[in-house]
């Protein structure tokens, strides 16, 4: 299993390199540059700036230089926040996104999976319809709408009640400031998890071995939890791999709506500002997380299904 693990990590390197390459050239091909602000910069300053950031070097040289600095663990200086390196910005933003994402992930699993099981076991009854309809609503309402609805309800309408919550801002990560964004982040994932768990649980409950378990006289909850649940979790884990990567790297929409200083917001600002190095840095981080999570998913399969073997 360890050799499998090592092999997968090694395979991840060229994948990451391909992503870096595509992203690097796409950024440079996009019209506009990091210094095209609303207020035009005087020509002589612009020349100096371009020289300082090596933007006048041939593209291939910039690319090679960038790769070399990456190998040294250096994401380069930010083009926009000129006093900061990208590494510093990520070190500031990533913990914020990570905490929120992790809280949202836990919330989504703790609510979504049990609700999906409940709906599956009550298939085609009122309880199932209510849960499924709620999940469907959660999926079709986009984040940016839900975020504003939450702000409207808890930040404005309920302003004078005890459930009033801050409409935005971070306040150094005060608990009250985290509630709405975490909930908003988690909602679509709760909805997806309900649907996925419901479907796979219905499937699992129809399996022959579940009938065998019932024929043994085991109590219903033992049949469900011991015999049916594990195979029902396979699609859930498949979904959670990339979902975790997305959640942990911060949602651009949610962080923007709630004004949270996470890397999702840096990414949006970086893209708007053509802050080449910042966008590259966040992209590399996200890509590495996606690759790592997919590996984690494959390792989890082994826990759920003893037939999975990590050979070759």
């Amino acid at each position, binding site marked *: 299993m360890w050799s499998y693990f090592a092999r997968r990590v090694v395979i991840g390197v060229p994948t990451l390199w391909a992503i870096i390459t595509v992203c690097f050239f796409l950024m440079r091909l996009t019209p506009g540059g990091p210094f095209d602000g609303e207020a035009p910069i005087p020509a002589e300053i612009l020349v100096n700036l371009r020289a300082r950031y090596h933007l006048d070097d041939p593209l291939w040289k910039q690319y090679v230089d960038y790769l070399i600095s990456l190998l040294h663990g250096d994401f380069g200086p930010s083009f926009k926040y000129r006093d900061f390196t990208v590494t510093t910005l990520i070190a500031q933003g990533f913990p914020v996104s990570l905490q929120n994402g992790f809280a949202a992930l836990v919330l989504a699993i703790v609510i979504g999976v049990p609700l999906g099981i409940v709906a599956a076991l009550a298939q085609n009854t009122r309880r199932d319809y209510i849960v499924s309809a709620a999940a469907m609503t959660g999926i079709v309402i986009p984040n940016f709408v839900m975020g504003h609805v939450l702000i409207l309800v808890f930040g404005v309408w309920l302003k004078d009640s005890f459930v009033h919550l801050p409409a935005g801002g971070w306040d150094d990560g005060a608990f009250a400031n985290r509630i709405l964004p975490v909930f908003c982040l988690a909602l679509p994932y709760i909805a997806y998890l309900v649907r996925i768990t419901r479907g796979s649980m219905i499937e699992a409950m129809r399996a*022959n071995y579940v009938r*065998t378990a019932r024929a*043994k*006289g085991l109590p219903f909850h*033992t049949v469900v939890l011991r015999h049916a649940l594990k195979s029902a979790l396979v699609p859930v884990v498949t979904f959670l791999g990339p979902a975790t990567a997305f959640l942990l790297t911060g949602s651009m929409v949610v962080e923007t709506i709630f004004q949270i200083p996470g890397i999702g917001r840096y990414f949006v600002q970086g893209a708007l500002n053509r802050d080449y190095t910042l966008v590259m840095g966040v992209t590399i981080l996200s890509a590495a997380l996606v690759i790592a999570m997919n590996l984690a998913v494959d390792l989890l399969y082994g826990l759920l*299904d003893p037939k999975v073997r990590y050979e070759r």
Partner: protein
Amino acid sequence: MNAPVLDIKNLIVRFATNDGEVAAVSDLSLSIGKGECLGIVGESGSGKSQTFLAVMGLLARNGSVSGEAIYGGVNLLTAGERALNELRGNALTMVFQDPMTSLTPHMKVGRQLTEVLIRHRGVDKTTARNEAVAMLKRVQIPEAERRFDMYPHELSGGLRQRVMVAMALLCGPALIIADEPTTALDVTVQAQILDLIRRAKDELDTAVVLITHDLGVVAGLADRVAVMYGGRLVEIGEVHQIFRAPQHPYTQGLLACTPRLDDPATATLVTIPGQPPNLQNLPSGCSYHPRCPYVMDRCRVERPVLTPGVSGGLKACHLDALVQGAA
């Protein structure tokens, strides 16, 4: 027949589906005596499995059931999940057709056995393990201790079915329902599994319901045979009587379909012409009349009830006596 272990009366099983109600089992009554082996035969879809899944409370969610299935003075059909769970896996056990999918893939075989003992006999883990290993040995699983710690996919189909049989025997059941226990296995393994069931019947005085397509299996093991057609019992009787002098044309047809190695006259495969009945819209009168070579006007309008046949047993047919060897 001695006092029945299980007494089924007027069992009806229906399924609600999007395109109408399926009458899977209609007004079926039969009983199984202590230590008796009752063979259940009939074409695919004739309701053999659903009859006994209903008795065990294992119908699919869209199924509904009425009638009685009396075990130990209790009607299993109305007993409720809690009371049923005391009996299932304990006094009433089941062996299913497909050993490849009937064991939980992510649990070691041993635990799937011990959980039965722990559930029904309240023994501790060590005792359960010892008893389970002993049972694996008894069903002739080689290297039982090692197999105990294996996952189902590490065992062959034959071994898995032995595990299923072991599971069914663990608590010394009064009745084992074996639903085509050998259909998925190759011939030599089939014989071994049937032998295990025979031994359980002889040594433990366990009653056995043996559901099968294979009349040869029935001939070797059953004391009596029940023949089902379109969800109904059409004939029931002693195994010798059924084989020697079937009283229902459908039974006769089934027997004619079975190739006999000792009789070159039947070397070519015979089939019963026509289709099995549509359970959403059963034919009027006798369900078998569209396929019956002896059909009379009466058969199309009046459904025959079970009546004693001339050579013993019961048959649901308007004919007074069936000409033997004609089909």
